[in-house]
């Protein structure tokens, strides 16, 4: 339960207006720091919900697939250039960001990850590998300024951030083929 309390405190810290606006002032920090940290805060808060509503998770996320789908959908949504601009200019979208990332991504991810099979885990990694590679290419190669609130140089930086993450996922997936973790246990 202490974990859930830390998660809550962390969440409150992240949505404090000065903290939020500082993180949102730099494009890559907005997308690759603030958003993942919000997910992590939800991840930490998950045990609270799992304890309070065990029947809900057991009934509606029994095999973990709905939760993983929700996780993938919301993450994809927040990687659209438009949504970052909207979060900065429309208050309701900003609030939706603060709610959706912890509670519709972090919480279901934690609940689902423990339930889904290795195959589904790898499928999830592959989906993000494709998504991040595509987004990286988009943000780096686009001749246009995709976000009205951010400069094009920041956009290229963000693109390389995506490529870096995609590379990390790729390395992880490739090592799965060659390394059997059981050999090291």
């Amino acid at each position, binding site marked *: 339960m202490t974990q859930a309390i830390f998660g809550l405190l962390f969440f409150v810290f992240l949505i404090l207006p000065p903290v939020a606006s500082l993180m949102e002032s730099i494009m890559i920090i907005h997308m690759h720091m603030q958003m993942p940290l919000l997910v992590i805060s939800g991840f930490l808060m998950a045990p609270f919900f799992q304890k309070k509503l065990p029947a809900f998770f057991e*009934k*509606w996320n029994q*095999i973990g697939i*709905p939760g993983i789908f*929700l996780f993938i*959908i919301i993450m994809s949504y927040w990687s*659209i250039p*438009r949504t970052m601009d909207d979060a900065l200019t429309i208050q309701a979208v900003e609030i939706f960001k603060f709610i959706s990332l912890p509670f519709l991504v972090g919480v279901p991810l934690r609940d689902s990850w423990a339930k889904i099979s290795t195959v589904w885990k790898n499928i999830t990694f592959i989906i993000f590998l494709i998504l991040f590679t595509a987004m990286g290419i988009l943000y780096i190669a686009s001749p246009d300024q995709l*976000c009205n*609130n951010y400069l094009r140089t920041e956009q290229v930086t963000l693109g390389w951030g995506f490529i870096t993450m995609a590379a990390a996922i790729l390395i992880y997936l490739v090592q799965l083929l060659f390394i059997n973790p059981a050999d090291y246990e």
Partner: protein
Amino acid sequence: MIKNWRNMVAITIVLAFGVGLFFFGTDGFQAFTAETARTKKLLEEKPQFPNVTLEDSKERVYSFSEFDGKYVFITFIYTACTDVCPQLEMNMNEVYEQIPKEFIGEDIIFLSISFDPEQDDPKTLEKYRGFFGSDGETWRMARIPNQEELDSLLNEFGVIVIPEDDGNFTHNSAFYLVNPDGYLEEVMDYTKIDEAAETVRAILDGTEE
């Protein structure tokens, strides 16, 4: 499978939610960047061009209503800009060249508006004008000296200007066409010169008949 009906329901709900989210977040899968959303909204709303006071490269001061009864082809620029503005103005020049001469000055006026009134005084604009084949009459370059008026215009037209550290600005660019009644008529992609010229010509031809 019977036992898993809840999973199917949950998956369906999640997917439906996802489709709905993307649908509303992108104006029906049409606007994936804020810029396309902005253009789309502008064309739907067709706002009135605020009656701002302009000061042009010939140091003449007049309000926007000076152009009543004429179409006005507008771009937003600043002269210290090194990347997109010269491109924007060169493309504007090409559109200008493609419009039949009988319309120029009579039915349509070209206007480059600077959003950097501090640096872009009439003298600077006069010099800049020369680079792009603007004659200062049928294609004018002007600044809006009043910052409040400028801000309200940029806001109304959704032009977002981000000042950079080195005195430059980043901004979203487009061709704007304001109709003789002073309302926004078209927002055009500034990289598609022929398309823009064709659109403007068709509108001008329409007024002839």
